[in-house]
């Protein structure tokens, strides 16, 4: 920004450079961003000097596009591990969400009401798939990113913000969006409005039911409420728990064994949610309390984290 004749002139690219300063390190800015913005500012000033206002505006627009191209390239090159982490995490999220949806659809009877409405069924099941894939993709992404990078203040801050964001998403998703999706799914399958079961209750309604009724009592003729609310809570804090596992794995000097522990734990975690059936839980309830069964995937993750932390 400069002052000319009492007027404040903002050079194009000033804001873009401020964005770049937050995204890239100084050598990248010196080598790629600054030369581009300096040329843009020169060309813009030249057009203004010649009185070509529209030309100057056009230069600002094309310069902005060029900046984002350079920034995207610099991001891929400079933050190669970050890009790889995002790609792997998104791929894992897609696969796990698809599997979660397929598992439910495979057990859903094809009725007249659902014919031609597969897209809606999948849409209603997306939150459920997302609830399982979110903690896994976050942990996988953080692990790949941080095991190959220096843990500087910026990366630590970013990891912490990602964990907070994932926790917030998980609270909203498992607390309210998943039950709403489940309810819509059930209504579509049955073809009419049905009374809401335990999986269709929000977390607050579930808690109210737990304290008003008998927590050990079976709901919907299957598992007790105490299991369902604990399962919901376990899935809600899973992003935080698995992220801590990833951070512990990333800081472990034995890289190969850390990778094996993290990947195995994530696989076990996914399998617990994708492959379990209420019958399996009912069998386990002969040996342990229902509430404890719901926390098994989280307990596995916690144990793996402790073992990695001890190695580090």
């Amino acid at each position: 920004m400069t002052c000319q004749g009492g007027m404040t002139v903002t050079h194009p690219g000033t804001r873009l450079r401020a964005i770049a300063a937050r995204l890239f390190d100084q050598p990248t800015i010196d080598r790629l961003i600054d030369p581009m913005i300096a040329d843009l500012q020169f060309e813009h000033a030249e057009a203004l000097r010649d009185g070509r206002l529209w030309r100057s505006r056009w230069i600002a627009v094309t310069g902005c596009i060029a900046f984002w191209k350079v920034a995207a390239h610099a991001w891929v090159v400079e933050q190669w591990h970050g890009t790889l982490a995002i790609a792997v995490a998104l791929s894992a999220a897609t696969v796990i969400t698809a599997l979660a949806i397929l598992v439910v659809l495979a057990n859903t009877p094809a009725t007249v009401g659902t014919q031609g409405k597969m897209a809606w069924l999948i849409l209603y099941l997306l939150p459920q798939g997302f609830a399982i894939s979110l903690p896994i993709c976050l942990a996988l992404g953080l692990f790949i990113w941080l095991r190959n990078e220096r843990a500087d203040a910026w990366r630590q801050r970013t990891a912490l913000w990602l964990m907070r964001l994932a926790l917030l998403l998980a609270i909203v998703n498992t607390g309210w969006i998943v039950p709403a999706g489940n309810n819509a799914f059930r209504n579509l399958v049955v073809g009419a409005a049905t009374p809401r079961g335990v999986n269709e209750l929000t977390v607050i309604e579930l808690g109210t039911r737990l304290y008003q009724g008998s927590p050990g009592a079976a709901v919907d003729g299957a598992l007790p409420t105490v299991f369902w609310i604990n399962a919901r809570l376990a899935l809600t804090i899973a992003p935080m728990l698995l992220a801590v596992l990833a951070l512990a794995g990333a800081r472990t000097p034995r890289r190969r064994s850390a990778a094996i522990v993290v990947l195995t734990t994530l696989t076990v975690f996914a399998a617990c949610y994708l492959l379990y059936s209420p019958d399996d839980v009912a069998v386990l309830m002969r040996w342990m309390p229902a509430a404890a069964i719901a926390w098994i995937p989280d307990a596995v993750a916690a144990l793996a984290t402790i073992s990695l932390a001890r190695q580090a």
Partner: protein
Amino acid sequence: MISVLIDISLTLCKIRLMSAQSSVPTLPPKQALILELLVEESELYGLQLVEASKGKLKRGTVYVTLGRMEEKGFITSRLEKAPADEGGLPRRLYKASAYGRRALDAYAHVVRHLTPRLAR
């Protein structure tokens, strides 16, 4: 048995040589074009390179290519003084290094003698 062992060891030697060869610097066509322009004009800004290339270089990619070439040592750069009256950032001027000129000569030689069709 011995012949198999010899065969395997020769293959391994070849692979090792191949990996050593991959460290030889390469000169992609865009980098060769930039070097040609810089040799002709001595010193140029990124934007001038885009204009001089007549559409072959884009402003969204030229700085990335220039950065890469500087890392390889093909070119050097210096910052111009910031324009005092207008403010704004100082511009960066690029120049072909002696190594870059040699690389361009070698590239031109290869194009001329080994790929006659391209040279025409």
